[in-house]
């Protein structure tokens, strides 16, 4: 493996990891703050990708599609929290699993009714449709670099929001003691709605920006969901920092795995998870 090839795989792995982080961070926030297990989180990723495809073929521009679609997914998230998830906070995890499993079926069928069962592709925006030559016959697409950049920006914004703002302080307080926060006069219900909508929007946004790289297919949500579960288990529930570390780890492990040992690449992430479970069952950054 020469250096240019190694560099390409490294960048691909980081980009994939960062994208995973966008999906997994919403999942881990919802777990950590509301104590909800949401199997339908992958469906939001799928909805994002399909919205990007249908809106960009309508408007002719992926950027316009994303600008239109993000507010839609925020509204979707707020609506779902108000209508369904709110009723589950005090209930056993079993019912959360059941409800969100039902929600997956509903999302998949609605997708089939609205958008059909075909596989679609989305064009890379013209502005970013270029590649940087590395050697004579190897080059790296600008769009992938742009994705990594956007994901890093969002991760930084998320860190700032949670650690440095007043809203973030309320979110962190709500995670450790819901009743106390409420008695202090803070509208915890509103905070939950906002956090949930944020998670939905992040997952959907990841689906949108990744649409030009991977095709838009039925059931694309479930694959992402399972990998994100592994990310959350490795990183530790509720830990955004852990989600970042685990996402990058998985992204690199899977990318290099596919190049070096393609036969067992699909298993690597699960082996990683098993090792972490034996070593630190609460995850790398989890609270014991």
């Amino acid at each position: 493996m020469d250096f240019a090839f190694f560099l390409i795989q490294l960048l691909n792995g980081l980009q994939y990891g960062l994208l995973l982080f966008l999906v997994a961070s919403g999942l881990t926030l919802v777990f950590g703050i509301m104590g909800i297990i949401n199997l339908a989180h992958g469906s939001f990723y799928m909805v994002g990708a399909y919205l990007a495809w249908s809106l960009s073929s309508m408007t002719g521009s992926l950027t316009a599609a994303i600008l239109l679609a993000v507010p839609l997914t925020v509204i979707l998230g707020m609506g779902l929290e108000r209508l369904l998830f709110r009723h589950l906070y005090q209930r056993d995890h079993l019912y959360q699993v059941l409800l969100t499993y039902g929600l997956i079926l509903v999302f998949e069928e609605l997708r089939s009714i609205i958008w059909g069962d075909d596989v679609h592709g989305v064009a890379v925006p013209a502005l970013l449709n270029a590649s940087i030559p590395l050697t004579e016959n190897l080059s790296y697409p600008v769009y992938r670099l742009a994705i990594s950049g956007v994901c890093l920006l969002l991760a930084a914004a998320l860190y700032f929001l949670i650690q440095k703002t007043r809203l973030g302080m309320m979110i962190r307080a709500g995670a450790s003691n819901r009743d106390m926060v409420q008695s202090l006069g803070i509208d915890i219900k509103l905070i939950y709605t906002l956090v949930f909508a944020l998670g939905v929007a992040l997952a959907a946004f990841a689906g949108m920006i990744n649409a030009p790289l991977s095709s838009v297919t039925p059931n694309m949500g479930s694959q992402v969901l399972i990998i994100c579960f592994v990310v959350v288990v490795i990183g530790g529930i509720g830990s955004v920092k852990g989600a970042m570390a685990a996402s990058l780890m998985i992204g690199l492990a899977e990318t290099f795995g596919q190049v070096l040992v393609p036969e067992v690449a699909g298993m690597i992430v699960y082996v990683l998870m098993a090792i972490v479970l034996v070593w630190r069952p609460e995850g790398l950054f989890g609270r014991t």
Partner: protein
Amino acid sequence: MTARLIKFLPWLAVGLLALFPLVGSTFYMQLLTKVLIMAIFAMSLDLLVGYTGLVSFGHAAYFGLAGYALALMAPKYETVSLWWSFPASIAVCALFALITGMLVLRTRGIYFIMVTLAFAQMLFFIFHDTKIGGGSDGIYIYAKPTMKLGEMELVNLEKLENFYWLALLSMAATYLLLHRVLGSSFGRALQGIKVNEHRMRALGFPVFRYQLASFTLSGALAGIAGYLAAVQYGFVNPEILSWHQSGAVLMMVILGGMGSLYGAVIGSFAFILLQEALSNQAWFGAWAKHWQLAMGILIMLVALYLPQGLAGLMQRFGRKPVTEAADE
């Protein structure tokens, strides 16, 4: 008197079911066989969810693994002996459950749900991505297993009646076994662990070992169902260990009312009949193709409004549930 009658009721039901091949058509016998197999699967999960307090969302792994074990052990065009292939498939599942159990039981709650799902998906990808089990196409089981004693053929699963009776016998045996296990001191301890794990540990019970035993037994019983299902379909592919299967069986357990073996059986009955009805084109026309939409909405409604399942529904209408009456 009524209490006795109610105790006698399951035997009556099994007796009536055993006579069904004399009157039933092929279609209904196949449907009923499917229900019986799923009832075994649902009871095995109920042992974990309803009695041990462990919510597994990867139970299809053990179901599918038994099917793959049969498909890989059977010679390609000849029949395989039921004598050894059935126990061997179950043993494979028990072993896999023992190994994964040691890992997943290190976690609790949400973690446990995610980790069981992740391990099931690992198995899914092993069979989906590698050549071991024929990839995404799976493997055909051309000849169904038979059971011979010397030269005499005792059971040939190619015959629908034989297969139906084997499924019924397996279901009754699973029920009896679980009934005995749950009534034993081991079973009582499991139910104690479900209610308060820390207290049971303080009382000196080896909680981890008990949970592991329950997890392994549950995996082995799911193997019975998986073996029979593979025989019925005549092929295995990665779909049989997909997470939709895990979700469906969890729904059966909760629909019937968890923590009751009757409930698991009733739940699988209701679920399969519902599935058949919703995907019936004569009734729903073009919408039958999208039957999962209705099923998804129903699942959500059960989660929100019917947490005790059909058993809870009966209670709400003022009738006493069967289990309570039997104790009088």
